[in-house]
């Protein structure tokens, strides 16, 4: 038995961020990662001989600036130059695409002048409103039972920011806050390609369609993120997402963190309501003053702590966290780069989105409610090897796509459904990039079921819990316990299941570390 001050369970990006931030205060921190590699869902892996890809998360669009600063990630190899900002290309089957350039469409091309003007206004408005919510990302959700002076003050700040909008803008903000994205787009835009793209972005990673009330929040969440100081900007890191995690790991190790891989934790040891250590799969026991779980909250409490040590109401709440993913990941090894109709060379290096209209996204969503996959799925596609040739053999190409909707609990089961779904995806791709099917050397489709097994993410849900209004802020992961501490003394949460949620942001990890430091944990 060894002893350490702090043990972090899970070497995903949030675990490493939390570990680094804690180690910087002089704590002795040990990170335990079950897999042979750190990074969790933010990894670069070889999926076919000579082909490497960011296996799950494939774009960097919300790494929190506080994380970059606190961990000095630029010193550890992370670069986010404006020149790397990727455009978003809304593909169209029967016409030219529409392209959002720069940081989420600073310039819009392929649309009518009136649409460009409408977009300019809408974009500014969305960024303004997302900006109101942005400060919440780096804060602990307020404690309803007894708000501290500091928390009340931070709410006051938000109210003040709201006031600064001006009366009419504030009224609109309050009106649209919980609206569905499709209606808002219909109010302000005309081009269904643009509306389709935004509808897709608002609902990506959640079990919502663009007509579902509150779906606009998804767009705010995206736009509250920033890259290289620009809200809404996205990049493809050189070397894939694994490189980002490598930078975070380097920062953590420099701060003195010890990282053990291939070290799965079997359980968290609780004595008299207090977490005192962990037992490994090997039976070895490691004791620590503070345990930080940067993995899924349901796994943490139902598997590692176990229901016997926690209260029934809490078990209920944890079980009620909806975490059945709808997003699949497609990795294709292609013998040559594909040609998407009407898209120029710069566009191919961007994010290519198949979401022809909000109605199309909605129709893709419908079957997922009943445990069926979308017959005409929507997806975002990147071709990372175009910008980073090291990812594929010379002349060949990697295609990486996030595809919706692929419900975790597929009625017919994924064994039977997977080949059918792959066929549906390939049919969609073929329609936008004729001939792509023939260039496939190897296809890897990771359904939520696969993602669950391979990346230990229950339900294959990349947010570790739906990022919907009723699972946000004070209700994330569960009401009463949204501030990173848990009913078990000395046990903290630091993963995407906690506020503010998923995406490679590091914010839950950093916020959790700040809370632990404040609690002198």
């Amino acid at each position: 038995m060894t002893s350490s001050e702090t043990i972090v369970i899970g070497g995903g990006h949030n675990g490493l961020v939390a570990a680094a931030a804690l180690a910087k205060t002089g704590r002795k921190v040990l990170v335990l990662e079950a897999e042979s590699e750190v990074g969790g869902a933010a990894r670069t892996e070889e999926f076919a001989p000579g082909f490497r890809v960011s296996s799950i998360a494939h774009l960097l669009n919300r790494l929190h600036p506080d994380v970059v600063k606190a961990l000095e990630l630029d010193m550890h190899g992370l670069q986010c130059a404006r020149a790397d900002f990727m455009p978003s290309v809304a593909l169209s089957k029967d016409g030219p695409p529409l392209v959002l350039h720069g940081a989420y469409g600073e310039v819009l091309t392929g649309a009518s002048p009136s649409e460009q003007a409408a977009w300019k206004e809408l974009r500014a408005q969305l960024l303004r409103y997302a900006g109101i919510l942005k400060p919440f990302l780096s804060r602990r959700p307020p404690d309803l039972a007894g708000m501290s002076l500091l928390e009340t003050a931070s709410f006051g700040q938000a109210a003040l920011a709201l006031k600064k909008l001006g009366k009419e803008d504030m009224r609109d903000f309050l009106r649209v806050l919980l609206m569905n994205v499709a209606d808002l787009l219909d109010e302000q835009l005309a081009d269904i390609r643009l509306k389709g793209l935004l509808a897709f972005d608002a609902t990506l990673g959640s079990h919502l369609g663009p007509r579902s009330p509150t779906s606009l929040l998804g767009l705010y969440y995206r736009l509250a993120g920033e890259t290289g100081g620009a809200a809404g900007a996205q990049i493809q890191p050189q070397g894939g997402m694994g490189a980002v995690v490598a930078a975070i790991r380097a920062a953590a190790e420099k701060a003195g963190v010890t990282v053990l891989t291939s070290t799965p934790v079997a359980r968290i040891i609780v004595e008299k309501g207090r977490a005192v250590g962990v037992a490994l799969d090997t039976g070895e026991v490691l004791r620590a003053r503070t345990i930080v779980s940067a993995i899924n909250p349901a796994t943490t409490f139902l598997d590692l702590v176990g229901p016997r040590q926690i209260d029934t109401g809490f078990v209920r709440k944890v079980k009620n966290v909806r975490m059945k993913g709808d997003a699949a990941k497609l990795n294709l090894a292609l013998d040559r780069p594909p040609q998407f109709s009407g898209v120029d060379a710069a566009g191919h290096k961007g994010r290519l989105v198949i979401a022809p209209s909000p109605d199309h996204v909605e129709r893709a969503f419908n079957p997922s409610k009943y445990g069926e996959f979308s017959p005409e799925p929507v997806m975002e596609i990147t071709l990372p090897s175009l910008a980073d040739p090291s990812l594929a053999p010379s002349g060949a190409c990697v295609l990486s796509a996030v595809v919706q909707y692929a419900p975790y609990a597929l009625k017919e089961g994924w064994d039977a459904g997977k080949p059918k779904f792959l066929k549906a995806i390939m049919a969609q791709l073929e329609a936008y990039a004729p001939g792509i099917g023939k260039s496939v050397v190897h296809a890897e489709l990771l359904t939520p079921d696969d993602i669950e097994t391979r990346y230990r993410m229950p339900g294959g849900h990349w947010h570790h819990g739906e990022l919907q209004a009723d699972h946000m802020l004070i209700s994330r992961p569960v009401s009463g316990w949204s501030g990173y501490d848990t009913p078990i003394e000395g046990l903290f949460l630091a993963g995407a299941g906690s506020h503010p949620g998923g995406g490679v942001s590091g914010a839950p990890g950093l916020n959790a570390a700040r809370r632990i430091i404040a609690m002198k944990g």
Partner: protein
Amino acid sequence: MAGQNGGCYAKFRAFGNRSRKNEERVSREDWAKMKAWDAIIIGGGHNGLVNACYLQRAGLDVLVVEKNDWVGGAATSRELTPGFLYSNCSYVCSLFRPEIMRDLELPRFGLQVISYEGGAVFTRDGDYLANYRDHDAHRREFARFSKRDAEAYDRYARDVTRQCRFIQPLLMRTAPDPTSLRPRDLGELLYLGKKFAGLSAEEMALTLRFWTMSISEFLDEYFETDVIKANFALSGIIGTALGPMSPGTAYVLLHHYMGEVDGSVGAWGYARGGMGAVTKALAAAFKASGGTIRTGAEVDHVLVGRGKAKGVVLAGGEELYGKLVVSNADVKRTFLKLVEEKELPDIFLRRVRNFKIRGSSGKVNIALDSLPEFPALPKDSPVYRGDMHFTDSVERMERAYDDWKAGRWSADPFLDMVIPTTLDPTMAPPGKHFMSCFVQYAPPKIAGAEWTDADRDGFAESVISQIAEYSPGFRDRIVHMEVRTPREIEAEVGLTEGNIFQGELTFDQLLFNRPVPGYAQYRSPVGGLYMCGSSTHPGGGVMGAPGRNAAAEILRDLAKSTSHMSAAHDVI
């Protein structure tokens, strides 16, 4: 009813033209000859009449103008076939505020509400799940399907009751403007804040979740059986253009649970004589207090001069003058059809245009020559005297909604079916029955085009065939049928897009957002022009609260006493 007040109208001058240019031509003498009402209410729906009653009782001289030859709006009972009285649109009563019934002495004018005895969802395996009023029978009934769910009901009821208690007092208050620093708005905000702060941390969290959850997800946290979830989920979708899996439908459930029948919170009942009895009583109360109603008088537009409402111009060109004008019509009809664009600020117009008012329901009213039989249901079941449904899973409800999104009526519709004559024999000849079927979903347009008569027939057939599946011989009992799609509802009642709530009940259109931000206190950008319909807070259903709250604001502006208006009943 039309013409009975005709004597008064001799005083008015009719003008052939309706533009403001003509208004300017009116000479001083002409003005002097004309009567100016203290208030003109556009539309004799229940809210218009409630508003009119309160204003008249405050000493104002009030005129109600109604386009149809009868009053009632969507709370009306007409005899479309001899001997049968229909509840043509709204068909059940629960939400109507008891404070208003008392203030306006509606029982004296004939209003009487009879509680349901139960209800049921028929299941496709030949069984049914009933709702019984008796708590233990209710539990035993649920236990037939799941012992767990039977015992889960109390906690569910507790949580829903807690939320209702939080929201109910807000119905009879004007929503505060959160952007305003006026003492009254700050005071109301403080009231809300205090109410919220009075909740336990657990309740607060639940309240916040309640406003954003789908009814399906909410029910998943309590129940395991599909038909039991469907049984509760239906209250989350009635009247809305949302499916049970849409976030926000948990709130809609509250909206339907907030009512009461004689102190029995959440109870539903029939108005004796059909829902028209509500507005008949209101009209009688109004007239008894000296008010004037003119039916068959469609308003073409509101007269506006120097930014102030001066009266209305009828479709025939006749001008009626009023010191203030109150519109019971929905916000879109009022400001996009009845008021000239130039009188309204751009931002207001933009918000009105963006107001969501998509119809989602239709109505099939059926006169029957005998009581239909449902072989699944014992003949002595109280369910006959309650509401009946055939949608036994949340998934079926949601799929019905998918049809709506695609611009189709639901192939497998959700029905809320009642036979009021089982409790109220006044509505049909002895032994014969009136059946009301509320149907979801029916979109305002069919695949982007107007409804046709063939569409309407197809819609009706989807309803009849569903009932006939559970009630053999049903078709043979039909004497007469009235089918209302959103097209008919809009044409007759004037509800834009056939939306029965005068606007969808989503968070962006509730409280201080209803109908539009900045004008959620019954006033409008036009001086002297007020709103009192369900487009305003707290929204639709035969509740009367918008009409009452609007009257309170008008009287406040006129610096008149509101002592004849009861405060909201205590929730203790």
